[in-house]
């Protein structure tokens, strides 16, 4: 099947408006006759479910958590971008569009990104109307801050908990519809397959995580808002339950999987402390507004620090290497995430890492304390030359900005970040790749839609900070609810979809077969054992820097590990009960397939772009080297085994933006 991205004709700025004017609509009376399944209740799924119900569709929403409010969008810290230009600093829809395409290293679809920038302003209006308490200035208007890779302040925020506040907004809209009976909510349910009837997605198979019951649910369309697959690395900033299963099952049922190798490694996370580690904790990118990143200039200082003989605060200013400011003077500490992460890895690989494992750099607020402190002292008419006083005043300012992050750091590391610089290291955070969708957010399976992080659409090879929340809500509130009507307009006379059909039988049978195998396997190792091993392969060979040789061996190792998993995994208990090990096993089984496709995709992409860095393709200064011949989306079609996946290319055409060297110098 040839890929048709269905991008509307016409000038870029008019595409979305024209498209909305021309697509089919379902009249309100007929919407009542149509069922839609939404899997996942994060920013994308939650907002989509609520909006579809508001429009009049009958919605069934599913989440594996005990409440829709706990979807992992809740953990997003820093903010949400919108081209409001409230600061009057030259922002515009075009500039947000431009920054996003450039930030994505020219590997995203122009039309989608422009639409995203266009609806971004509506998101803020909508959220404020819902009662989302964004940060405000003393005049009562909304405040903004800056994020990496841009030259304007367009990020709206609610302290370090923006994702939480936005998700609770979507959750409240969802609650309203649940209360009205327009959304039927299924908590603690995991989707384990998509059911395809006559080539169209018509339902899903779920497992009730409390009782173990395998259930059939039918609808006229299925929407996946199931998030990213960063947990394929085992250690990531994702929640423990975040998984690829829904997206992967869709892939196995015919949806193409796009750009799986595009992974965002976030530069500011708390370093790994030991083998017991279960997850990594992010320190918001917003910290780079005020924190400066450095390592010692001299190896002898590094060694003294590692040996505990020297404290970082004792190292003189001239003996520090503020390597981001040195290498990227224009953007300094606020370079995009991929650039910052690689730079940290470069320093640590060169032997300048500042903790025992050699994998940490400093994020230092000392300068910010003094800068803010001087300001406050000046305003209050206090002595600006009293360093101790200025520092104290400055710390108070920083505390109001990032207090919760500093507290989080102290609880985990047991060091006071007000007194000593934070230690940070990159960690897997977000996946730009995902299920391939067209302009309508429909996958290659008719009636199957994919939104939010689960799809591949808007961020190219690297996502800018504060853009994930924007995309999730844009898809869920403002894009999918309209585009899905175009498809559902043909279904007004279909009537309810029966679940007692051979297609549902077959899907349920295959789910049951897998579960029975796992339960009865009685192997020797736990699920986590395999997950950790998969994570090690991924991190070492498909991590921040990749090369052909490693990728080839990763493909083999993952395939072997997968075979071993099915032979040797041990899942205690039964299916008919709350069984966390079984739920994990089903998720890891899919990660073990995805991981292989991930490596295969990375091997194919013989260039460096955004989060994908191939050691063979770099400039003499060590920057990413993009190659014209790879200006396409790789969309993979499932053919039985990950290694047999067939590549389809969607060429990326840039008509409104000049593809340039992506420079932050």
């Amino acid at each position: 099947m040839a890929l048709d991205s269905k991008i509307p004709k016409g000038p870029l700025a008019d595409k979305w408006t024209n498209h909305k004017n021309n697509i089919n609509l379902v009249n309100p009376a007929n919407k009542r006759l149509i069922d839609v399944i939404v899997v996942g209740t994060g920013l994308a799924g939650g907002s989509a479910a609520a909006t579809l119900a508001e429009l009049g569709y009958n919605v069934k929403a599913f989440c594996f958590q005990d409440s829709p409010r706990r979807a992992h969008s809740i953990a997003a810290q820093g903010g949400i971008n919108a081209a409001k230009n409230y600061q009057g600093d030259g922002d515009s829809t075009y500039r947000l569009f431009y920054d996003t395409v450039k930030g994505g290293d020219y590997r995203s679809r122009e039309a989608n990104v422009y639409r995203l920038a266009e609806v971004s302003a509506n998101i803020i209006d909508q959220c404020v109307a819902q009662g989302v308490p964004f940060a405000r200035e003393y005049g009562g208007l909304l405040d903004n801050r800056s994020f990496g890779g841009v030259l304007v302040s367009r990020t709206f925020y609610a302290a370090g908990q923006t994702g939480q506040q936005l998700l609770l907004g979507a959750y409240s809209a969802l609650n309203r519809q649940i209360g009205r009976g327009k959304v039927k909510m299924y908590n603690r349910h995991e989707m384990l397959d998509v059911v395809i009837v006559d080539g169209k997605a018509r339902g899903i198979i779920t497992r009730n995580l409390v009782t173990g019951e395998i259930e059939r649910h039918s609808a006229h369309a299925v929407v996946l808002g199931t998030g990213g697959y960063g947990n394929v690395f085992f250690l990531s900033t994702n929640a423990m339950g975040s998984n690829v299963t829904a997206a992967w099952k869709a892939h196995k049922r015919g949806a193409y999987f796009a750009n799986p190798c595009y992974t965002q490694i976030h530069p500011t996370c708390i370093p790994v402390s030991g083998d017991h580690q279960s997850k990594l904790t992010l320190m918001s990118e917003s910290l780079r507004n005020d924190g400066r990143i450095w390592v010692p200039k001299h190896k002898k200082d590094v060694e003294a620090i590692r040996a505990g003989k020297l404290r970082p605060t004792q190292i003189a200013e001239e003996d520090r290497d503020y390597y981001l400011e040195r290498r990227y003077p224009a953007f300094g500490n606020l370079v995009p995430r991929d650039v910052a992460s690689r730079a940290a890895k470069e320093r640590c690989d060169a032997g300048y890492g500042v903790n025992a494992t050699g994998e940490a750099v400093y994020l230092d607020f000392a300068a910010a304390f003094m800068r803010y402190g001087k300001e406050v002292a000046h305003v209050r008419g206090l002595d600006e030359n009293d360093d101790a006083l200025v520092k104290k005043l400055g710390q108070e300012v920083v505390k109001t900005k990032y207090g919760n992050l500093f507290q989080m750091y102290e609880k985990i590391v047991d060091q006071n970040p007000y007194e000593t610089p934070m230690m940070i290291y990159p960690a897997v955070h977000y996946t730009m790749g995902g299920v391939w969708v067209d302009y309508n957010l429909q996958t290659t399976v008719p009636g199957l839609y994919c939104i939010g992080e689960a799809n591949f659409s808007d961020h190219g090879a690297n996502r800018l900070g504060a853009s994930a929340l924007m995309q999730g809500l844009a898809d869920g509130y403002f894009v999918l609810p309209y585009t899905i009507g175009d498809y559902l307009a043909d279904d007004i006379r279909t009537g309810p979809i029966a679940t007692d059909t051979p297609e549902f039988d077959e899907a349920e049978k295959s789910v049951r077969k897998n579960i029975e195998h796992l339960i009865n396997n009685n192997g020797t190792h736990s699920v986590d054992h395999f997950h950790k091993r998969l994570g090690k392969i991924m991190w070492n060979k498909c991590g921040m820097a990749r090369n052909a040789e490693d990728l080839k061996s990763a493909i083999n190792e993952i395939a072997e590990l997968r075979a071993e998993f099915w032979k040797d995994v041990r899942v205690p208990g039964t299916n008919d009960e709350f069984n966390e090990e079984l739920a994990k096993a089903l998720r890891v089984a899919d990660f073990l397939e995805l991981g292989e496709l991930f490596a295969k995709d990375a091997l194919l992409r013989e260039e460096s772009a955004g989060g994908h860095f191939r050691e063979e393709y770099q400039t003499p200064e060590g920057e990413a080297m993009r190659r014209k011949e790879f200006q396409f989306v790789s969309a993979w079609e499932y053919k039985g085994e990950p290694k047999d996946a067939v590549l389809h290319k969607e060429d990326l055409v840039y008509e409104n933006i000049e593809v340039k060297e992506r420079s932050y110098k």
Partner: protein
Amino acid sequence: MNLTLKIWRQKNANDKGKMVDYPISDVSPDMSFLEMLDVLNESLVQKNEEPVAFDHDCREGICGMCSLYINGEAHGPDRGITTCQLHMRMFKDGDTITIEPFRATAFPVIKDLVVDRSAFDRIQHAGGFISVNTSGNTIDANAIPINKHDADESFEAAMCIGCGACVASCKNSSAMLFVGAKVSQFALLPQGQVEATDRVLNMVKQMDEEGFGNCTNTGACEVECPKGISLENIARMNREYLKASLKG
């Protein structure tokens, strides 16, 4: 560190349940409490025993999924954190640690340490929202300036993660801190005024129907709340409720 864990084991909602002792050794002080339970579970799986079921997800203190009543306190002995942020350095070698589920009639146990907190969801269904449809045509976000102090206070109420520690800590299993926080978030904003009367009446009605106890102002909830939600929110809810009752 070597520790003794006393853990509540209960096979399912209908099982009677009991405390079971588990010795655990070589616990690193840098582990989080849940990582320590991971290690225990790994060893139980190895011994072909059933691992201990507990709720958890984000493991960074924001999703509100983790619970646990540790040594007689919700989220354990530390302050301002959830169980997933509790670290083993808070304990000493040789300690006995008692681990129980959050207890309340409105939070029935599903298995071991996992409880059903859907009562909180149902309270929100009753009124925890502002009735505004998605349109893209609402007024500009800056059309109504909001006093910064009010906006900040509203945010502080909205920080609630819905974990249920307030209910678990309250000697009466009252949910008033949770409901008060939600009522306050909207009561402090101009957008929330239109439906203020119905909101507080409906949410309190649902709260009462769920079988939570009554608040006697002991303040335990505020102390144990991982997000430091203030008792002022309960006072505000009481005011809002009185106002609404007199009006309605």
